[in-house]
């Protein structure tokens, strides 16, 4: 299918689903959709709905190009996301479920697809016929780029207006180079936009002089998509600060992390003191801390309200930051900043917290302990507690939601006709992958609105598979670790990429670990002899004597109702939620009544 | 199963006949030889019984066991094999074998023939034997007892001492007896013609009705009874007749020696024996009514009858068969017929009690 030559492993595998000669079966049945959503947790967790099992399988088959393309179907920047993705898929990974071990390094494998693909790899695009519609997109961040890519493939003429000189948005300006090499970013952005997207950089939208007016765009284009993200830092809410005021404004030695990074990536020369305190718990905070180390700070401490385990960054990030001697101190909330008589920062006053109840989103509440204030001395304070949208540029009246973000309808359109919005600009500060996912989603809506009908939607593709694609032994392969740059090397230059990427061997080993959750194991009830041989070999309590199955309101399946009464056993059934796709049941079945099919949610033409 | 070959040590004495002499011989053989095998062969179905007592059937004695001489245990006690209902078909004296009619051969070391005599029926009456009742065995006696009703009329022909003995009982038990007397009357006694009327008178005194055989030389028929008349009718040559319930011949005894024909020992009428009772075959002896014994006095072979004689013969034979050298000596007194003081007939023949 792709130019990538099949690797040797591919030959050893009996079947390759996508090569099946027969037509797959397409389903919109909620039971199938529900199955995939339930059973392929990584894909479900992925905001871009990346078909993770498929690309990992391709990596196992050493068809890296194909793996890269599978990724690219979901997000146009696989190499980027393979590095800096927040990886919501990994906590969801079945391999990480209780008793199964550690989750698969999905993100690293994603990167390895790009890293290892052949030099002759060519990206693939499926082009629709031109529609003659014109779409303006404001913002060349992840959401905007993703939307532009999709809309252009759909046959629309797309123009991106970008304030900065180069596209990339937060990717380029918010993420340090040691995590995301700029040449890769540039290449992938280029690939995303090169099929007919007009990129206008340095163009500011707004009311000011020299700025392009939004309403004129609305006049000129068939649709306008706002994808400006969240580029204003959240203000530090110190105890005595007035609401809406910035208590640290104008203070020397105190900086907002976002500004700090953007300035850095715009090319400014940044300096920090010997002791740096970072307040905040996100990627930005960590990035600021690690950048500070690279700028020469000796003591860098991240102060967080709760504890490490509840902060929304990947384990790898924390791990690497700590390796770089970044301290993380928890259960503290800043109350005030302490300055010396010269107005120089000498420390931050915190109040000690205790952990409270759970808050929405899986975080814990932090409850200050009265009278427990203390001061952490520092020379530089970087505040990285979040970002918010910037709305000043709007010259049309748009309805806003209660949280301050723009309100959009189900089809992505704001209260202003023709005006759409996507990404962080709609959802508030989130992750790159969310932004990309949302960008594509809204692009699909825009297209539907422009054309007057949905042209693509997600469907379940069911493809038979002849044999298990895994071996039981693979379940015991340990998670492979990402090789990183030695600490000594890291500090020399800001741009030295810390993570070195998986080697072929490491990628191969790691790829074996994927359970290939999209493989659906089913028992032909009519042919099953109820011999329970499958149950006998099952590694988990994954095959059950079933009396009934719950059907949920949405039509998808809920729990299986098990029974030990022989005359109630209406089927022996594989509980795919417990199934780790080891194939043991398939191999042992004496009457060969177990079938395997690959069930994937893919975007398909209506 | 008894031996089929002669025992090496114990001799086998075989006695033919279970009458007085045979039984006596058996008893004495056992006395002489405690180890010998002794076998008595008889055609009779009964063991040794007192034949002379048979008239008692008219005294209400109907069970033959009353006549039995020995209890059944006697034979086994003395280890005497008694073979009854057994007939000798012939003798192979050379090989000392008896051929029994039931196809059995019995070897003997010494054989005593004591087969006795059967009632003699004169030639002219042989054809009527069927209509006459014999008196040789218990069976015969019972048959007569049955045929002769109480107070019935018996016709006795001949009138030997056996018949006269019966006649006494019949008369005593209330029967009518007619004797057709002839030359055999008083057999085996020889009654001189002169004395005959005297004896006949004595018989009449007993209550017999008497007819002299001479007067009716030609008996021509004995017919079956007709309605209302007794069962038998004897017709005489002169046309007269007699009606009676039974007709019984009493013409004395004839020795039973048919099976000895051609066997070797000399036979005149009976088996000829020395006074030692040995026949002309050194292994064969004879005793009782079957044999004729050499009489020096008479220079002829004589029959000796009577219970005492035949019993003595058994003893002598037994003694000699076991190596003795006895001789038979008859008591002349014992052979005489006489009348006692009251004129009643007395005969040693009747002295058996």
């Amino acid at each position: 299918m792709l130019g990538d030559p099949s690797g040797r492993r591919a030959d050893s595998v009996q079947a390759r689903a996508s090569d099946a000669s027969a037509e797959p079966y397409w389903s919109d049945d909620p039971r199938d959709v529900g199955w995939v959503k339930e059973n392929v947790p990584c894909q479900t967790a992925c905001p871009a709905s990346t078909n993770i099992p498929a690309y990992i399988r391709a990596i196992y088959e050493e068809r890296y190009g194909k793996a890269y393309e599978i990724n690219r179907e979901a997000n146009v920047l696989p190499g980027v996301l393979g590095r800096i993705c927040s990886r919501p898929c990994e906590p969801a990974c079945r391999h990480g479920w209780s008793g199964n071990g550690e989750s698969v390094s999905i993100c690293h494998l994603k990167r390895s697809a790009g890293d290892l693909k052949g030099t002759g790899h060519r990206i693939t695009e499926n082009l629709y016929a031109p529609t003659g519609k014109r779409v303006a997109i404001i913002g060349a961040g992840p959401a905007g780029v993703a939307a532009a890519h999709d809309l252009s493939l759909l046959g629309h003429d797309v123009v991106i207006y970008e304030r900065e000189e180069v596209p990339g948005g937060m990717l380029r300006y918010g993420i340090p180079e040691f995590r995301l090499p700029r040449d890769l970013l540039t290449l992938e952005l280029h690939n995303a936009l090169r099929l007919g997207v007009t990129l206008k950089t340095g163009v500011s939208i707004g009311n000011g002089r020299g700025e392009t007016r939004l309403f004129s765009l609305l006049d000129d284009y068939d649709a306008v998509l706002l994808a400006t993200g969240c580029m204003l830092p959240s203000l530090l809410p110190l105890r005595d600060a007035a609401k809406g005021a910035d208590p640290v404004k104008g203070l020397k030695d105190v900086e907002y992390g976002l500004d700090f990074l953007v300035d850095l990536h715009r090319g400014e020369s940044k300096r920090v003191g010997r002791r740096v305190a970072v307040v905040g718990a996100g990627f930005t905070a960590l990035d600021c801390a690690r950048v500070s180390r690279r700028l020469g700070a000796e003591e860098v401490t991240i102060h967080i309200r709760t504890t490490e385990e509840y902060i929304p960054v990947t384990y790898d990030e924390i791990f690497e930051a700590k390796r770089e001697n970044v301290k993380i101190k928890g259960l503290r909330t800043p109350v005030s900043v302490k300055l010396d008589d010269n107005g120089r920062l000498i420390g931050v006053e915190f109040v000690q917290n205790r952990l409270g109840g759970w808050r929405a989103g899986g975080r814990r509440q932090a409850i200050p302990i009265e009278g427990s204030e203390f001061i952490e001395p520092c020379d530089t304070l970087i505040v990285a507690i979040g970002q918010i949208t910037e709305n000043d540029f709007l010259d049309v009246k748009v309805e806003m939601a209660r949280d301050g973000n723009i309100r959009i309808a189900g089809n992505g359109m704001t209260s202003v006709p023709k005006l759409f919005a996507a990404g962080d600009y709609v959802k508030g500060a989130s992750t790159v992958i969310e932004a990309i996912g949302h960008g594509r989603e809204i692009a699909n809506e825009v297209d539907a609105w422009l054309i007057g009908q949905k042209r693509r939607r997600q469907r379940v593709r069911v493809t038979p598979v002849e044999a298990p694609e895994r071996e039981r032994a693979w379940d015991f392969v340990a998670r492979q670790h990402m090789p990183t740059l030695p600490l000594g090397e890291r500090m020399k230059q800001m741009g030295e990429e810390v993570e070195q990427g998986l080697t072929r061997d490491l990628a191969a080993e790691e790829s074996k670990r994927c359970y290939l959750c999209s493989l659906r194991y089913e028992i032909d009830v009519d042919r099953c002899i109820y011999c329970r041989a499958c149950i006998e070999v099952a590694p988990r309590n994954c095959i059950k004597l079933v009396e009934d199955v719950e059907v949920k309101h949405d039509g998808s399946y809920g729990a299986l109702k098990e029974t030990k009464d022989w005359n109630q056993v209406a089927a022996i059934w594989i509980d795919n939620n417990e199934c780790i796709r080891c194939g043991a049941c398939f191999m042992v079945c004496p009457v060969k009544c177990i079938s395997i099919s690959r069930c994937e949610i893919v975007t398909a033409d209506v | 199963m008894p031996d089929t070959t002669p025992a090496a040590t114990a001799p086998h004495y075989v006695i033919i006949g279970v009458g007085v002499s045979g039984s006596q011989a058996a008893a004495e053989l056992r006395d002489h030889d405690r180890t010998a095998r002794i076998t008595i062969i008889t055609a009779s179905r009964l063991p040794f019984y007192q034949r002379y007592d048979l008239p008692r059937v008219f005294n209400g004695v109907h069970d033959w066991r009353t006549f039995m001489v020995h209890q059944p245990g006697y034979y086994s006690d003395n280890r005497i094999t008694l073979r009854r209902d057994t007939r000798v078909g012939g003798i192979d004296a050379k090989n000392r074998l008896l051929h029994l009619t039931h196809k059995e051969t019995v070897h003997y070391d010494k054989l005593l023939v004591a087969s006795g005599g059967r009632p003699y029926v004169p030639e002219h009456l042989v054809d009527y034997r069927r209509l006459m009742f014999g008196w040789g065995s218990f069976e015969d006696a019972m048959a007569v007892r049955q045929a002769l009703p109480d107070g019935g009329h018996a016709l006795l022909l001949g009138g030997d001492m056996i018949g006269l003995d019966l006649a006494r009982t019949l008369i005593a038990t209330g029967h009518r007896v007619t004797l057709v007397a002839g030359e055999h009357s008083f057999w085996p006694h020889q009654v001189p013609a002169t004395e005959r009327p005297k004896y006949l008178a004595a018989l009449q005194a007993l209550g017999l009705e008497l007819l002299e055989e001479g007067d009716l030389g030609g008996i021509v028929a004995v017919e079956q009874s007709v309605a209302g008349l007794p069962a038998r009718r004897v017709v005489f040559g002169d046309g007269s007749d007699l009606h009676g319930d039974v007709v019984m011949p009493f013409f004395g005894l004839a020795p039973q020696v048919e099976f000895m024909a051609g066997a070797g020992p000399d036979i005149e009428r009976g088996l000829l024996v020395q006074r030692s009772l040995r026949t002309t075959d050194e292994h064969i002896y004879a005793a009782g009514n079957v044999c004729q014994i050499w009489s020096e006095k008479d220079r002829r072979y004589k029959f000796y009858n009577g219970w005492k004689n035949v019993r003595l013969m058994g003893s002598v034979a037994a003694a000699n068969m076991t190596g003795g050298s006895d001789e038979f000596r008859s008591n002349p007194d014992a052979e005489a017929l006489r009348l006692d003081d009251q004129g009643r007939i007395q005969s040693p023949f009747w002295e058996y009690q």
Partner: protein
Amino acid sequence: MSPATTDHGGKGAMTATDIQIAICGSAGDGTIAAGNILRNALATAGYRVISFDVYPPEIRGFGKCISRLRITTEQAYSLKEKSDCLISLDDSHTIPHVGEVRDFGAVIFEAKPVAQVPEGGHITAHVRPGQIPYGFSIREISEQATSSNRSRNVVALAIMAGLFGLDKGPFRQTIDSTFGKKNKKVAEVNLDAFETGYAVGAATFKLDSVKFGPPGKSVRQGKVTILSGNAATVRGLLDAGIDCYFGYPITPATSIMERLAVEMPKRGKRLLQTEDEISAIAATVGAGYAGARAATATSGPGLALMMEMLGLGTIAEVPAVVLVSQRGGPSTGMPTKTEQSDLNAAVYGSHGDSPRIVIAPTNVEGCYRCAGKAFEMAEAYQTPVIVLLDLYLSNRYETVVLANEAPFNPDCNKRWRRTERDEVYRRFAASDDQISARAIPGDEGGMHVVTGLEHNELGRPNDTPEIHTAMSVKRHDKLKAALRHPDFTICKRFGDDGPIDVGLLGWGSTFGECLEAMFMARAEGIRCAAMKVVMLSPFPADPVAEFMDDCKAVLVPELNFQGQFARLVQAELARPVVPLAKVSCGPMRVEDIVEEIRRLAAQVHQPLAAE
């Protein structure tokens, strides 16, 4: 002893008939057939008859056959020690038996053998001086009458009949029906032979002391008939409504099957000759499980093969009736000799604790009752029932009185009926009498599985100690009800009431001899009583103990070496008994029992005398 008319049981008058006739010959001589004719003729004439045949295991050849018949006015209990008349059809076999003819009895034989006999080989060399020899030219008479020597047996019989002055009518009738079944011509020929022989016999001066009195008066109610033990058994099975029979030929039980094979099809019932005893009992259990009244009959070797399946019947609580006619053992032993040596096997046989009901009739009438009652018990108590016969009982004939109405309950099942409450059918549910209501295949809703595995109330395999204990109790305790089985005598006392010196405890066919012996001992002035024990398992401990309380000494005569019943009694009651265990290859000798009674009586009096 007084030879002529032994007063059996002291009941009959002196004029009563009590004559025993033996016919002895070689297999193929028609000995048994002659016995049958004689038996049936005399029974027809109105006499009570007990008869018993002894025959060799071989069908033809030179084996010995003896048919003995005791002909009485009132029912007797056993054969006599001495026969009154012996008819020899083959001297070589008869000679050893001449001694059993009493003094002044008759011995009838062939006076003109066809072939030379060795010295001493003729019966005349053996007839005792006290006996009356009757030699006849039987062969010649047969040949004269029928141009064949094949009617020798009938001629011999006829001579005897003529000699004893028996009424010709019943003989003619019997001969006609016996041979007429096969062929009218054969019947006629035999009738001719009979007439000729009869005339010869009648003309023969009778010297023996054998006297036939007139037959007894007919019985008050029911039908009098002459039956063998096996025939009575068959009658009992049929009258109790046997549905299925499965059997494998084995002496002496075979005739049960042979008779059933005639009778069952007529009634639309099914009989199958199986491939072995194992399948016979298996099919019996199968049919019993399916609700049929099913039975099988066998002898010791067959019983041994059936043991495993009997255990299944016990644990699965399936009714099955097994008729066991004992013969001499062990192993093939003596197929044609009677013995009572399978009691242990019947009572204790099979593996594990496998109780069952064992009943043993003591006479032919008992065979009838036990056979029928066995079905009732098997059904009522849901268990295999063994009816313990023996060769002597199976093959002996007795005139019996059968009730006009079959005295058997046609259905004794405690049947399960579905009720609203029953969610699940509990095949082995606990109940007061430990008998669970039974469903039979075909019953709606009663589906269940029975198994040879230990199981719970549902019949599901379960081997916990609680269940095994409870089920063992159930299997044993439920049988106790059999001791109160309606209209069935589990044991019975005869003879003197009150304290006695010697008590006889008898079972099975030997009990007849026990009774005869008891009467003789009483006639001698010995205080004596006898108890027959019909139910051997469960053991009727109470009545037997009560009887034994009355006895100074208890004698247990039986035909086995080990004294199996004596041991059973001792084991059940822990009291001493005196065994009289004989393995004489024939019925127990009455005289042996009497002798032992005398000895014991003397013994029990000795201490008293010493005082």
